[in-house]
């Protein structure tokens, strides 16, 4: 049984086809990277998988269950979680409270009106466990808005983990993160991959090649290539379109679809 499967997934915004007929199946464990130039439809693909957008056509199955028309919160309860390209967290909460928010739901306190949230022993223990795991103990009483960019990214991923996902989608986990912090994030992803399936959208090729088991290349909404690192690296189409092969004109950024 596939963990996650899409069938002919298509999303159109008016005339623009952002995701075009994508059929893909994702197996348990390991890291799958999705790469492609800007505007290739990577984030839209994530948004479709997590219920943020509804597809124009096609189906999505999570463990053979149709989740195509489900809302994000229902999909999350089925153990699929995601992080965001721009770190998504609660700026006015401390780190402790940020993590606590995920734990409440998993331990069944979501509609509890009368318990004091600071005195729930099981929630506090669970939250501490995550904070230790992420080595954020020093910062736990700090408001999230004061964190460094890298720590915000880690906090975002940490909040995804609190629902104990079986599949985790990471949207550009290292974008805008500086050198040393970048290593921290990569190391962290490597650790996570031992426990769950990770699907990652990433621009940095060094990172992609160092963490992936399988790579899917998207271009203009369609799958250009799909395979192991070697297969993708040797694929001629990919070389031409993405990895800076010799193309007439030779301007990589034009090929990548970047607007200067």
């Amino acid at each position, binding site marked *: 049984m596939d963990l996650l499967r899409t069938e002919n997934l298509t999303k159109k915004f008016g005339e623009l086809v952002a995701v075009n007929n994508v059929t893909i199946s994702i197996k348990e464990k390991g890291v799958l990277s999705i790469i492609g130039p800007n505007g290739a439809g990577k984030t839209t693909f994530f948004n479709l998988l997590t219920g943020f957008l509804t597809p124009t056509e096609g189906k999505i199955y999570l463990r053979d269950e149709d989740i195509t028309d489900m*809302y994000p*919160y229902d999909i999350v309860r089925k153990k699929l979680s995601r992080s965001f390209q721009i770190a998504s967290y609660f700026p006015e909460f401390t780190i402790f409270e940020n993590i606590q*928010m995920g734990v409440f739901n998993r331990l069944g306190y979501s*509609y509890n009106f*009368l318990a004091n949230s*600071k005195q*729930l022993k099981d929630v506090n223990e669970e939250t501490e466990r995550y904070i230790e795991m992420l080595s954020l103990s020093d910062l736990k*009483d700090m*408001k999230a808005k004061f964190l460094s960019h890298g720590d915000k990214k880690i906090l975002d991923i940490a*909040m995804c983990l609190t629902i104990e996902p079986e599949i985790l989608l990471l949207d550009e986990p290292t974008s805008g993160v500086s050198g040393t912090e970048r290593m921290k994030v990569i190391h962290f992803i490597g650790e996570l991959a031992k426990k769950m399936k990770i699907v990652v959208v990433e621009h940095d090729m060094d990172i992609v090649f160092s963490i992936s088991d399988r790579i899917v290349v998207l271009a203009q909404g369609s799958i250009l290539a799909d395979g192991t690192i070697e297969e993708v690296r040797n694929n001629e189409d990919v070389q031409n379109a993405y990895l800076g092969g010799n193309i007439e004109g030779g301007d990589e950024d034009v090929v990548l679809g970047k607007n200067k």
Partner: protein
Amino acid sequence: MNKQYNILNDPFLYLLIFFGVFPFIPLLGKYLSLGTEMLIWILYSLSFNLLLGYTGLPSFGHGAFYGIGSYVTALVYLQFINNSKNIFLPVLAASLIVGMLAYFFGFIIRKKRGIYFALITVAFSQVLYIIAFKWTEVTGGELGITRLFRGQFLGIDLNNSTRYYYFVLIIVFLGSIIIRKITLSPFGKVLKALKQNETRVQYLGYNSAKYCCYVMTISGIFAGLCGGLYCLLYGAVFADNMHWVKSGDVVIATLLGGGMTNFYGPIVGSSIFVLAREILSSVWDNWMLLYGLAFVLIILFMPTGLLGMVERIKEKKHTEQFNNNNNKKKKDLEGIAHKEENK
């Protein structure tokens, strides 16, 4: 994190003491109806702040809930238990009926946010205002419903203003404690989170629309209760209370005190607001001019309100302390590295 609860640190204790001795304060104590109105406004603005300050829903139609609470109290009183011995039933009925209405209304606009939410609430309150104003047979139209007597509660005659004052004090106090309890609960935390980042809330598995609907209901229940108490205070109810300008009053009171950042903000704000309104209107006929000016000044220079400033100072201290700790740690680490180098 787990500080021991100390009743001496609880602002509610001091509020209770203040309003407990209010009738005995020289000058002020004579105006018991003013004191009662302040109390009602405290609960009213706290209930409103669940929407604005906690969930970030800018409701400009809260006056409708308050007004309907008044009407329901008056009508139930006249229809069913005129001259009865129990005044609690009409107030309870107001609370429940407004709660149901708020649930229904909340369900309709559960997915609307920001300016759309604000506009729909204004329209909603105006529609109800017009109905109350025009439906003369039921609501008395322009003349309203007057000449209501308070009757009794558990054998205590509440037509005496001091007794009614204490009756309201107890209800408001219990209501405020319940609202505070809700804000500290996991449910309250989700509301606060919703205000900051709704997408993230959804991706943690919470159905955000449901929370908006529930918080409207809770807020409506307390607003209806306040409307009922207000109706019995003056023994009358008029459509005026439902006008959208009146809904604006509670917004100003909440903002003035700093409800956006502090739970106790609305209490401070509404006390000042009711008091200032009373004093200004007795001094100068055109006091609305000052009122309008004050509103502009608050939004311009004090968007987080009075207690918001306190909160800002606290935050500054917090970051300073944190930075100091960090610097100290860095220095310690550097010191260790230095020593090892010397070895």
